[in-house]
C-alpha cells in the first residue's frame, strides 16, 4: 500500500516536473473533451492558427461575457472564467503548444 502511494506520488512529481507550460496550466483543469471543443469552436470562427491564438489570448487575458464562446446557460451556472495569471509570453507559448497538438492537420488522413 505504501509502495503504491509512493509510486503514484513519484508519477505525479515526474509528470509535474516534465509537464510543459500548456499541460501544467491548462490540462490540469480542462478535460480532453473540453479542450477539443474549445479548439473546434474557435477554429470554426477564426480559421487560421494565428487568428485563433489571438482570439483565445484576448479572451483569457480579459474574459468577458460577450467574448465567451460558452452558451449563456453555462455561464449563468458556472460563471465566467477568471483572468489568466500567466504573462503574455507564457500564455502565447502555452496556446501555441495547445493549437499544435490539437491541430486538425494531424488528425486528417
Amino acid at each position, binding site marked *: 500500500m505504501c509502495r503504491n502511494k509512493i509510486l503514484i506520488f513519484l508519477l505525479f512529481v515526474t509528470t509535474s516536473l516534465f509537464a510543459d507550460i500548456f499541460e501544467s496550466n491548462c490540462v490540469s483543469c480542462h478535460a480532453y*473533451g473540453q479542450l*477539443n*471543443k474549445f*479548439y*473546434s469552436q474557435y*477554429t*470554426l*470562427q*477564426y*480559421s*487560421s*492558427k*494565428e*487568428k*485563433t491564438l489571438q482570439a483565445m489570448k484576448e479572451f483569457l487575458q480579459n474574459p468577458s461575457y460577450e467574448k465567451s464562446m460558452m452558451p449563456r446557460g453555462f455561464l449563468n451556472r458556472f460563471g465566467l472564467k477568471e483572468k489568466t495569471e500567466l504573462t503574455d509570453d507564457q500564455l502565447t507559448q502555452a496556446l501555441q503548444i495547445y493549437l499544435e497538438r490539437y491541430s*486538425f*492537420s494531424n*488528425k*486528417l*488522413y
Partner: protein
Amino acid sequence: MFSGEKRTVFLVLSIYLISTILLVVAIFGTYFYVEKEKYKVSLEKQFEKDTIKVHTKLEHLHQMSFKEKLEYPRYEEFESAIYDNDKNLIFSTMKSKNIDFMQKIYNNGNSVIFIHNVSPYYLGAAYIVIEKEGVSFLDTFDKRILFVPLAILLLIIITSYSIVKIILKPIQENIKALDDFIKDTTHELNTPIATIQSNLELLENTHFEPKVFKKINRIKIATINIKKLYEDLVFLRLNKAVQSNLETVDISLLVSERVDYFKLLLESKNIKIIVKENAKPIQEIDRSKLIRLMDNLLSNAIKYSHKETTITIEINQNNFKIQDQGIGMDQKDVENIFKRYTRFSTDTQSGFGIGYNIIYQIIKEYNLDIHIDSKKGVGTCVEIRF
C-alpha cells in the same frame, strides 16, 4: 515581264495577304475567345458543385472532430485541398503544391485549378481548392475546326495571285508593244547610220581643203553622237532579256579605246585628255555594257566642259575616276540624280538625258559604286569603284 514586276507582285501579294490574315485571325480569334469564356463558365459551375460536395463532408468531419483520426473526403473525378484564411495548408490530396490565390480558376501545367472561399470554417478551412486533369480548354477543343481558317487562307492566296496577274497583264502588254516599237526603230536606224559611217571612212584617204575638211569633221562628230544615242537606245530597251556576257576586260585598255573613239569630239573643243594609269585592273564584266558606262561618263565630261580645258582620267586597282573642269553642279543636284534613279525610273529629265539612267542600271547590275564630287563653276569628278 517588266523590270520591277516581281517586286510589284510580291509587294501587292504581301499587303493583301497580311491584311487578310489579320482579318481572319481577328475573326477566328474572337470565336476562340468566346468559346473559351463559355467553357470557363461551365467549368466553374462544375467546380462549384465539387466544392459544395467537399464542404458538406467537412461539416460532418467537424462535428466528429473529437475523434483521433479524421478521414478526408476523396473523390475520383478530382483532387482537392483545404487552406485556412491565412492561406496555410491544412490538408491536400492534390499534385500541385503552390497555389496562386490571386486567381479563381487557372491552368497549372496539365491540370486546371479552382479556388473557392467557404464558410463556416469547418476544420478551419476558409479555402477549398479543386484540381482536375485533362479539362483545360485546349484539351476539350476540337482542333479540326482550324481547317476552316486554313482553307480560307489558301483560297485567298490563290485568288489574290490571280487578281494581281490579271491587273498586271495589260501593263505587260503595253510594255511589250513599246519594247517592240523601240526594237524595230533602232533596227531600222542601224542601216542609215552604218551607211554614213562607212562612207565617211571611205573619205578618210581623200584630201580636202580645210573648209571642206572641217565640215566633214563635224559630220563625223555628229555621226559619233548619233551612234552613241542609238547604242544607248538599244541598251535601254525595256525588255530585260538582254543577255550578259561576262568577259575579262582590261580596264586601262578599254579607257584608251574609248578616249580614241571620242578623239574628234575632244579636238573640236580643244580639250586635253590625261590618262593616269596607277594600276592595270582587270574586271569580269560584260564588255559592251562597260563601254556604255564609260562612253556616257566621257561624253558627259566632254559635253559639260569648257573649251581648252583638261579632262583627267585616273585608273587605280579598285576604281577609276573621270575629272573635268566644266560647269559642275550643286551638291543638291548631285543628290537629285541619285534620288531619281534609285527608283525604277525611265523618266528622262532635261539636263541629264538618258545617260545617268544607263549608268545607274549598269552600276546596279554589277554592284559597282558611284561617287560624284562636283562644284559649280569648278568641275566634276565621277568615281566608279569595282
